[in-house]
């Protein structure tokens, strides 16, 4: 946990501070220096791309945006999903049935269609991508949380709280939600990589991050096209993406063990 957390933190700090250490700007093109291999001489640590832009700075920018998209999308899905699922599961009965049928209906909407609709209806911006990704992920989260809540609801400490007269809101947020933590943490560590992948997919279709802004996903896409001549364009962002995903997974595992340890006798 310490190692993967440390690596993630290091990457994050680098992504924030890195661009200042470089003399180059992420959007500056330089046609005299296209496809430069990584070197310290020209201060192009990660080389340059087909337009001569410095890849180090672009990669750092990509990490920022990728992590931002992932974290914000996960937080959005966490907040909506946990609240929605816990309420549906705890209240039960007709409310549950109506709420979950709504989820089923949203499931039935094709995701791409939904995103394209959003993009057409509103101006294309960052926020919208977060919302689109979060809006997809919370459906899974709501289902998982609802299932857990159904079984937690039968536990006797919930009955004890009801007998005392604890309000329904407090039961859901103070009694049920903390006990969902283990499974929610695991699921969030799965949504972060998923959100990263969805984001790069959208960028590839031209629906996501727009040039000259970039993300790890679009960098990898760009790299794929040039991988015969300039392998670094693919390898460096792909390796960083893999490293981030792995760290997220390990961190999630460790966090789950940490929360479980409390329950173990």
């Amino acid at each position: 946990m310490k190692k993967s957390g440390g690596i993630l933190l290091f990457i994050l700090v680098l992504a924030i501070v890195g661009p200042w250490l470089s003399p180059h700007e992420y959007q500056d093109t330089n046609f005299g220096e296209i496809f430069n291999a990584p070197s310290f001489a020209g201060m192009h640590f990660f080389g340059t791309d087909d337009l001569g832009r410095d890849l180090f700075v672009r990669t750092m920018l990509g990490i920022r945006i990728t992590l931002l998209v992932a974290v914000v999308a996960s937080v959005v899905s966490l907040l909506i999903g946990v609240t929605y699922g816990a309420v549906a599961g705890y209240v039960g009965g007709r409310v549950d049935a109506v709420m979950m049928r709504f989820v089923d209906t949203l499931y039935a909407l094709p995701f791409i269609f939904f995103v394209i609709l959003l993009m057409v209806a509103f101006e294309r911006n960052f926020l919208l991508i977060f919302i689109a990704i979060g809006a997809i992920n919370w459906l899974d989260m709501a289902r998982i949380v609802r299932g857990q809540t159904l079984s937690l609801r039968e536990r006797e400490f919930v009955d004890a709280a009801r007998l005392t007269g604890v309000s329904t809101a407090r039961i859901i947020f103070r009694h049920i939600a903390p006990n969902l933590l283990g499974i929610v943490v695991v699921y969030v560590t799965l949504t972060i990589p998923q959100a990263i992948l969805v984001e790069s997919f959208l960028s590839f279709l031209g629906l996501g991050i727009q040039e000259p802004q970039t993300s790890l996903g679009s960098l990898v896409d760009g790299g794929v096209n040039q991988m015969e001549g300039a392998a670094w364009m693919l390898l460096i962002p792909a390796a960083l993406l893999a490293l981030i995903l792995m760290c997220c997974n390990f961190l999630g595992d460790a966090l789950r063990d940490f929360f479980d340890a409390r329950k173990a006798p």
Partner: protein
Amino acid sequence: MSLLEVNDLTVRYGDSAVVDSVSFVVNRGESVGIVGESGSGKSQTALSILGLLPGNATVTGSIRFDGQELADKTDQQLDAIRAMSIGIVFQDPMQALNPYLRVGQQLRQILLQHELANGAEADEKVKKMLGRVGLPDPERQFHAFPHELSGGMRQRVMIASAIICEPDLLIADEPTTALDVTVQAQILDLLEELRDDTALLLITHDLGIVAGRCERLLVFDGGRLVESGATTSIFSSPENAHTEKLLAAALRTDRGEIRAAANGKTVLGVDNASVSYRDKSKERLVAVTDVSLSLREAETLAIVGESGSGKSSLVRGLLGLIPMRAGRVVYAGESLEGPVQFRSAAQRRDLQLIFQDPASALNPQMRVQTIVGEPLLVHEAAMSADARKESVASILNKVGLDESYLRRFPHQLSGGQAQRVAIARALILEPRILICDEAVAALDGSVREQVLELLNDVQRDTGLSIIFISHDLAVVRSVSHRVAVMYLGQLVEVAETASLFSRPRHPYTRALIDASPIPDPRVAPASAPLKGEVPSLLTPPTGCVFHPRCVFAQEDCSKKQPGLRRFGGSRVSCHRADELEL
């Protein structure tokens, strides 16, 4: 040569020894009881004999079975010995049986695996064995899945699988703990009957079970064997202080304590209460039918009955945790309506419940301080955080826990401590009525005594009324003023404790009393007083619900419902209550 010789056995997990230099022998054909509280190392000892301890356990010492050293054996050799010579019956047969295999298949596999029989011969043998362990209609049960059987029947299947290879040693680890008293008596009888010349190692926390059934006893405490000897001599003159403590807890009926007399004022009345559920196929299942009871001030009213008798459904209904289909609950002159969240704060505050399993009744993510303080947060919203903390500390103190427990999480508490925390939470609002739903069933003997003592003190000091649900008649006898006996959702007898035990008027009451084990080796255990098991609530018997299992049943009993009638101070629901001498 002894059948089993255990010498200097030590089981360690890391640095802590859970079994510490234990030595004992079991002779051929002998029945030996291992008794001790939870955590005393009795199950670990049994598992080490079987070689079933988890991989992180280190076992030292020697275990010789039939002259062979088991510690040196490879897993494969152990498998052969386990299967052929040692049988095991676990506590929970649902865990021990494979839910995806039919009962017959599971038993058949044992025979095939060890090449004791094959094909049709194996089927035949399995069916015979199912018949021997008392499964009605072995032909049909052969094809049943474990979940289609009742707990008692499953335990019979487990016993069948343990003895089908005709072992020399049968180890039974708390074989009846998960079962009702009446079924417990049947299973113990069965073990005794099938044993013949097989040696039996019976592991239990209940001295009543071993008293009349085991020749010798081994008493465990904290991983050590503290006393061993003939059962009779251990009961009559225990040498070890811990054995004395266990015995004292088991013989609690002799406490001879004078209990505060209940005064006459009724605080809670239940009129014609009925509770029903719908099962998955939407069929109505009536758990409680037309029950009327009253609870007086400072009185302890016990509700007893086998599982499925509706005792928990009744109190959950009256508390408003589940809806009641019919009937009325009157508290302090007011009718308690609807689910608990619609009742007034005062009503909620005055009725509190203590659950059976403290581990499940305390939120694992909250500290003791928050758990116990929460009722104050709800009902005394104006109270400052400091004042709240103070009153939490003082109530914890009252239940025997000091301030160091405030910051703990439930998993850092023992079963007894957790139950105290649950009691503290129930008592912090100073309720008028406390409902204990099997509140001491999960606790060890000595801890149970302390908890009962605590409830008794509170009742004496504050005039608390208690509804005490239990299946353990010995406990009921020592704590309650009146007893209500329930069977299949109906009240069959209500009487003062003393008169209920000295002169039960309903055959079911008599059977329950006879079924509870007597912790006295001089009394030969009576054979199981009730045959069969509780019928399904979906298809309750006609007439008197008890008639299919009643030895006194007459023709009329299956046709007419008896209804409760008065006999002196008791109310009894039996056609023959006036003529039977029970």
